[in-house]
């Protein structure tokens, strides 16, 4: 019996060495696909657009392509009821480097600031004759409600434990989404002004702290607790014992509104992947006819909050009133 069982085990274990795998090619023929990206901003005169094409990766690795798949020599028009403009072709150094290096090709308009209240159309004709088109409906410009937005911090009312900002009248029929952020404007010694973000809340994890920030939301109202602003003021110079090297100018609250199609696109592309679930196919929103990509518009608004001198000095920082006034 013992011999038979040993022999059986030997046969079974030896099968392990007959490991097999077969060649398999998961590729179909390359499908030509063109993506047009153009996101207009109402806070600048410089508008950009980009057209990219699909590509085949070698050995199933998309990283094998090192040259940006930018489509050159396309003609791109943007039209409203007021004007029609033609994009020019150019390139710029990117702020960060990706697999294509640090040069970014794009099409641009250098003297155009969109009016969010207008309807815009875009048309791109590619060198191969393909025509990509799209249009966007009006988007509300950001209008702050002064009564409900904090102008001075700390509040004069000592019982007030948080400050708040409110913008665009709430309308339940609207499905616009807003993203908002509050920054402390400061500089260190003679360096340029910098922005230090104030989070919604600070979280402690593994002896380190990180901030949780407001994500895209339909809410047109936000509050920041005083204690969080105090904590941000301290963290601003956390690694520097000499606090008087810092000058604080005030706080700036910014709101960005996305038009409907851009909001749909953003939400469908944001990295939301569950860490365990595994999804093979990906769907995302596009409003480009004959291709993919997005034509959208972002409208911005800024509200400045003055920090009182005594408050700034209480942290050991220098105080400067320049840059603390509201421009709108």
């Amino acid at each position, binding site marked *: *019996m013992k011999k038979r069982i040993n022999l059986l085990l030997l046969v079974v274990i030896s*099968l392990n060495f007959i490991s097999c795998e077969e060649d398999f090619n998961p590729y179909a023929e390359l499908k030509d696909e063109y993506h047009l990206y153009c996101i207009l901003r109402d806070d600048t005169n*410089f508008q950009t657009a980009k057209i990219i094409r699909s590509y085949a990766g070698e050995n199933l690795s998309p990283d094998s392509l090192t040259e940006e798949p930018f489509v050159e020599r396309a003609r791109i028009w943007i039209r409203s009821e007021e004007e029609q403009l033609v994009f020019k072709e150019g390139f710029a150094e990117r702020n960060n480097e990706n697999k294509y290096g640090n040069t970014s090709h794009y099409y641009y308009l250098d003297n155009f600031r969109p009016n969010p209240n207008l309807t815009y159309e875009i048309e791109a004709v590619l060198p191969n004759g393909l025509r990509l088109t799209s249009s966007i409906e009006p988007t509300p410009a950001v209008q702050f409600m002064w009564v409900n937005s904090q102008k001075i911090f700390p509040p004069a009312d000592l019982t007030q434990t948080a400050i708040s900002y409110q913008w665009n009248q709430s309308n339940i029929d609207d499905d616009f989404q807003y993203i908002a952020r509050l920054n402390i404007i400061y500089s260190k010694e003679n360096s340029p002004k910098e922005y230090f973000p104030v989070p919604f809340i600070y*979280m402690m994890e593994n002896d380190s702290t990180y901030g949780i920030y407001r994500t895209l939301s339909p809410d047109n109202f936000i509050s920041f607790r005083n204690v969080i602003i105090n904590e941000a003021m301290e963290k601003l110079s956390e690694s520097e014992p000499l606090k008087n090297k810092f000058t604080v100018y005030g706080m700036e609250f910014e709101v960005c509104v996305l038009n409907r199609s851009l909001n*749909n696109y953003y939400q469908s*592309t944001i990295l939301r992947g569950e860490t365990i679930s595994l999804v093979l196919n990906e769907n995302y929103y596009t409003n480009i006819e004959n291709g993919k990509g997005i034509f959208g518009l972002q409208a911005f608004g800024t509200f400045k909050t003055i920090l009182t001198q005594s408050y700034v000095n209480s942290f050991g920082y220098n105080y400067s009133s320049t840059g603390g006034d509201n421009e709108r």
Partner: protein
Amino acid sequence: MRLKSFLTISIILLFLSHQASAQERGTIRGLVTDSTSGEALVYGNVLLKELSTGASTDARGYFIIPSLEARREYTIIASYVGFNSKSITVYVQPDKITQIDIELVPTSVQLQSIEMIGQRIVESNETDIGLQRLAIKDLEALPKSVETDLFRSLQNLPGVSTTGDVSARYYVRGGASNENLVLLDGIPIYSPFHALGLFSAIDPDIINSIEFYRGGFPAQFGGRLSSILNVLSKKGNQNRLSGKVNTSFLSGKLLIEGPIPDGAFYLSGRKSYSNDILKKFLNERNVPADFYDLSFKLYYNNPDFLKGGSFSIHGFFSDDKISNESSKIEDYRLKNNVFGFKWFYVGDVPLFMELGFNVSVFQGDLIPKFSKVLQRNNKVTDLGLTADLTYMFDSKDELGFGFHIKEVKTSLFLENAQGYSGDIGTSGTNISIYSKYKVMRFENFGLDAGLRVGLTSMNGSEKFTERFEPRVSFTIIPMNGVTLKGAWGIYRQEMTTVLSENEVISIVEPWIIYPSYLKPARSIQYSLGAILNLSRVLDLSIESYYKKSTNVAILNPEKYLPTDHDLIGGTSLSYGNEFSLNYINEPFKLSTSYTLAWAYREKLGKRYYPNYDSRHNFKISGEIDLGKGWSTSIVLKYNSGVPFTKLAGFTDQLFMNDLFNEWFQDYMIKTIRILDITNLGRLPDYHRMDFTLSKTFDFDFAKVNLDFSIMNVYNRENLFYYSLATGERVNMLPFLPTATIRVEL
């Protein structure tokens, strides 16, 4: 109007069938049990020696032989795989039911069987096409994937397919996994899985018997299109206090069972203690999974209290957690709380009656914490009241009648892509009445004709909608050794999961009632089959099926806006042929099955193969009793490649990391795949061999069983998927040795 007709027909059927007999007749009714535990022996054989006829025991261990000439003695021989046969002489009294209890003693050398039991039952005209009856020892004899597992064992049956090693989810005859109903003592279990769907949540140690319908299920079952898995738990040892301790690389288990005054109980619990083995299933990914399950039953049968009645109270509770330490990674929690009460009555007339009340609550939560994952909370509360009656006529014909009242409430709290959140759950009431008539009077012919009528009010509506589900199945024995079987029926499903077809690993599968904009799914199914007893030791079974379903709920792939529907109605079509060959010649047992099948789905006007469509499916399992407590078994599985969508290139997608920055400056790219036509490609063929070697030690005080198993003996590198980020090929389960130890006291 149609409901009235149904009731009228049922009453007429009852009337017509009740034929008075001129001769003095009597009935023998019996219960066959295991002498060591008092547990019912289901689907066993009972032979009436003098008439060379007999019956098989039902799912509760009962049998009835009606219309026997009275005032004479008969010899009853009861037999069951793994037990010594027993012969009893019974005197049949006129116009009475003679009740006998038969206790069978286990054979000293336990026969391990991986064939379906009940295959050679005396009642060969039983209308049971598509039904596979399994006993727990069938599962235990198979090679173990870490430990004995109910769902992974089902995957060895013909017509049952999977998408790989990683999930215990199964697909029956071309239907989606959410078209399978899992019942534990008649109560639906909405999330019957542990550890990301890798294993079954139902502990095999509590199971007495399993009925698995791959199609053609009779009128008493409803609510799903594809399959019914009816798991019946044991009563508990009625003779002595006993226990089982079981440990594997994954979990530890404890079962205590024993007698109580006029009854029995069992209490069973299982708890995971290690995640190391899970890594092997998940390509070395560490998933902090933790689970437990707990079940109990109290069985009471006092002959002085409501004579002929027995009561049981049972509960099943499971809790799965995936708790990540980091607050930036989401957590999961899945819970089942199931409770049931049953009253089973066997009266002085040949009537079986079972009344039940049950509650099944499922809660599945995806807790995003501070990750970017969208929140998901699903709760299903299912309250059921059931009554099932079976009356057996002297002619051996049976009339079945019953009603199932179900009140289901679902809540599904979803945060959608636009950041809005809301509850898309609802509630519904379903009253299902069924009636069926089984013609069993002819030795060479059996017929089961039934109708299930569902009265459903969904989504808060006060209006009830009638839905008719006629079902017919038959058996013909044209010659000795040849049995022909067939079935036709209409099936409906009013609940579905909200699950992407593209998800290959999913944790939370939220259940909802079909939304008001979608009609419930409806399926029409045909099946035909034959069983050929080629020799005393060799059987060949062939079954063909055709299944067409409409309004199958599919996640809307074009939902971008909050106003877009979450689900759309699709269609599915599947057909195929299943062959199985069983050779039993002790100490050898060999089972082979081959399925040739096609499955299609259609959504938004486009037809495609679902990702579980496998054209050829071959399984062979062999078992040898080596003697002296040693036994071994081996299983080889082969599936032709399942569909996948081929890669038609890559593109760069704008990924807006910071909405305040100039996008062209910080142009973040996310590489995305361009996909070819949905599921037009095929993955390489899948095959794997598993092996187990068992040794049982019999001590005076305990029985100790050691199992050593190897999964994927020859380390086949079965493809799972390609990583998008790296292009790396990710394979399924590698060569994996495991071991379990079980001590029975």
